[in-house]
């Protein structure tokens, strides 16, 4: 089960997260995401979650204002990929507490960290929700210990 890439984008077609599991140039990545986002946004709501696109299998699902989309290889299992997406959404939801698009925009780095704990090299690494969240929580604890007090100027965002 190899995920080739994963994209999160809004209804307006803005990319919110992109993760590539195969080496591609920046130019290729931009072209693929542009074309694919257009293709998916043009589909109607009740349509099937799978489509053949170029020589890839695309699995996607919309959650509120965000589309989650994975490209997998030809022999890969579509339904389990759909549930990969769902588990990732659950992880984000649990971590942010009712996740919304803004959480992912403002904390994009966290979205990437959570994804890395869950999927690595395009394969499911840890499918237990508890274990993934435990790893992220531990990292957050390390973070808090490390944070030193910031200056007042910094706090109001002037630097």
């Amino acid at each position, binding site marked *: 089960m190899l995920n080739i890439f994963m994209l999160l984008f809004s209804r307006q077609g803005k990319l919110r997260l992109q993760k590539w599991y195969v080496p591609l140039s920046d130019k290729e990545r931009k072209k693929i995401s542009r074309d694919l986002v257009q293709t998916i946004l043009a589909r109607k709501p009740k349509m099937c979650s799978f489509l053949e696109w170029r020589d890839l299998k695309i699995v996607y699902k919309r959650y509120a204002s965000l589309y989650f989309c994975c490209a997998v290889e030809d022999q890969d299992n579509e339904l389990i990929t759909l549930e990969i997406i769902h588990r990732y959404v659950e992880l984000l939801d649990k971590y942010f507490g009712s996740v919304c698009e803004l959480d992912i925009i403002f904390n994009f780095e966290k979205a*990437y960290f959570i994804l890395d704990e869950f999927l690595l090299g395009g394969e499911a690494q840890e499918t237990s929700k508890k274990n993934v969240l435990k790893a992220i929580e531990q990292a957050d604890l390390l*973070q808090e210990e490390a944070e030193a007090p910031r200056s007042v100027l910094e706090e109001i965002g002037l*630097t």
Partner: protein
Amino acid sequence: MPAVSKGDGMRGLAVFISDIRNCKSKEAEVKRINKELANIRSKFKGDKALDGYSKKKYVCKLLFIFLLGHDIDFGHMEAVNLLSSNKYTEKQIGYLFISVLVNSNSELIRLINNAIKNDLASRNPTFMNLALHCIANVGSREMAEAFASDIPRILVAGDTMDSVKQSAALCLLRLNRTSPDLVPMGEWTARVVHLLNDQHLGVVTAATSLITTLAQKSPDDFKTSVSLAVARLSRIVTSASIDLQDYTYYFVAAPWLSVKLLRLLQCYPPPEDASLRSRLTECLETILNKAQEPPKSKKVQHSNAKNAVLFEAIALIIHHDSEPNLLVRACNQLGQFLQHRETNLRYLALESMCTLASSEFSHEAVKTHIETVISALKTERDVSVRQRAVDLLYAMCDRSNSKQIVAEMLSYLETADYSIREEIVLKVAILAEKYAVDYTWYVDTILNLIRIAGDYVSEEVWYRVIQIVINRDDVQGYAAKTVFEALQAPACHENLVKVGGYILGEFGNLIAGDPRSSPLVQFNLLHSKFHLCSVPTRALLLSAYIKFINLFPEVKGTIQDVLRSDSQLRNADVELQQRAVEYLRLSCIASTDILATVLEEMPPFPERESSILAKLKKKKGSSKLPDMDDSRKNVNGNTEFVCKNNGVIYENQLLQIGLKSEYRQNLGRMYVFYGNKTSTQFQSFSTSVSTALQLNVQEKPVDPLIEAGAQVQQILNIECVSDFSDTPVLNIQFRYGGTLQNIAVKLPVMLNKFFQPTEMMSQDFFQRWKQLGAPQQEVQKIFKAKNQMDTDVTKAKLLGFGVALLDGVDPNPANFVGAGIIHTKTTQVGCLLRLEPNAQAQMYRLTLRTSKESVSQRLCELLSEQF
């Protein structure tokens, strides 16, 4: 989970993101970004050393800017500095930046690798994980060179934390995909396979992916994983849904792991060990049974996870293609899904049935669903589902239902989406040709295609109908009559004019007896379309006219007048003008005899593979559409190579594989040539051979890069240990563009390759023939000739098969008698054969006697396919 972490710390970043979001226009955004970039650049260049926090914040801003789609050309050094920070969050941001924006700048790679090395050695699991994630995300060759030898050690070490093991397994998998040559598993193999037994299901999940990838490349090394995978799977499918705690997903026990295990098993044939095999069959039956149980939850996640496992189980059943009972159950299950209310399930059922249709065990069962599939074609609202329905109809088509399927496809074509019309046209054309019993149906079908979807009928399709009409004289009169009638329509597609012009030009005489289609009527009909057509069609019509002059002397004058007119003789198009001038002169000066010779009916076209089929394959790319012909050919194991050793064994539009081979006693050497047909390099090219125990195949290494248009050679050394019937399979894997290609080709290594011909006298032959008289030593087969019965061809085939032909042994000179010895490492098997052709009945009788029953059987199978 505390909501603490939201936007923690980096307030400057949050403010910047807000600013960007508030920008009203693209210009404003670019302006804001440029301002920020200038600010960051000055901070990085400034005299004052930045503290870790600021560096982290600025690097994070750069990352954000990059992810918005802007180019970033600085900041890499600062990110690398963050890697060696001892503060976790700084390190983490550094790694994230590196993972997203790798730069192959060698200076930096060395520094990055250094930092990774330190973190891997730190024994701090959180740091180790960060480092492993980075390697897995970047996966570059330099990293493979630096770490490929350390990671397996981390993976199998007893004191490694579970989470680190998981990262290490997938990290290794990624490196193996990008640089397989640098990741030798050798000594670690057994311990890696053993991870399938690990207590921690997360470790098993990650390890299964790794093992699957490795097993695809070298199945033999990982054979032991089969029994462990079956045991694991069996424990999962029989567990109560709560047993696996957090690995249970919406009441389904470890769905991801189950799917991965089933995938791993698809790297292998069905287990040979009977108890293992029955345990696996039980698992598959349990999964099929569960599909019939009432759902434990109404949530779609429950049914998705459950069905994900079910579809993977069905994929394994199809892959094994050996248990008719399971195949038919799978087919029935998919049949239920065809009418499910979930679009996703209907889509998948159609897709999965396509592969079932090509199994001989389930082809009939698939066919029973024809009505449902046809109704899907008519009622599905989603074009991608309708596309699957077309694919399935194509796959399930055979002689018994071809008329119905072709008719349905034609009627669907009238309303089909433009995006899939051309493909449907090709499919209809192929099916109509393949299953035509009488060719009048074929001609009608193609003319219908042109009528309904003329714009989508490519040259290949109308060329083909002409080839077929020319080659079959039983259909020529009908074709002429039908095109004549079709041309009566006031508006007809130009493709019809082309076909009509060609066919009437050749065979118009066959309908000229009827006054309604007299030569003059035919000519006027064609010529009435002339002015509406494009130049190539007009050129074709001019040729039809000159053919008319030969067929029907009575219209010569009329046609000459047309050719002589200014619009022809002085046509601005040079091709049309030239034809008009030449045809006119030809008709004036040549005698009837010369005209008849020059304009003789076209000779039959040589029979060859339909160009339409080639076109469809091309259109589908490296497609998975199971073309029945292809899969059947592969199942038979390249019969054409039984009697020859050299040639092309595989070709698609990316890759051509040719081979030369030579055999001596029980040893063989095969030179395999891989040709890259594209203008792009193939990367990570690797091969492996899976073979039965009775054969040893040793592969020499092959270059992982094949340049565009280049050919590389690989040598395989083959040893025959004892007699065998399964041919080895060559698995090829490479990256083309961004995607991984997997190809499996049967290698034509058959038992008869190890023949040594033996000359002997008549009396010796009969003496041995009698010695081998026990019933199980003789195998006889009577079969119909598939090819023309030609003595020389038969001789050549028998010699190619490997035996010596013995003259003057058989009293009937039309019969063939041969002898040879099969050499294997363990034994030698003497072999005598006799082939009796019966030209009148177009049959052969083949008799084989050898000292070993299995050898007699196998040789008889192989040889009887040849005639």
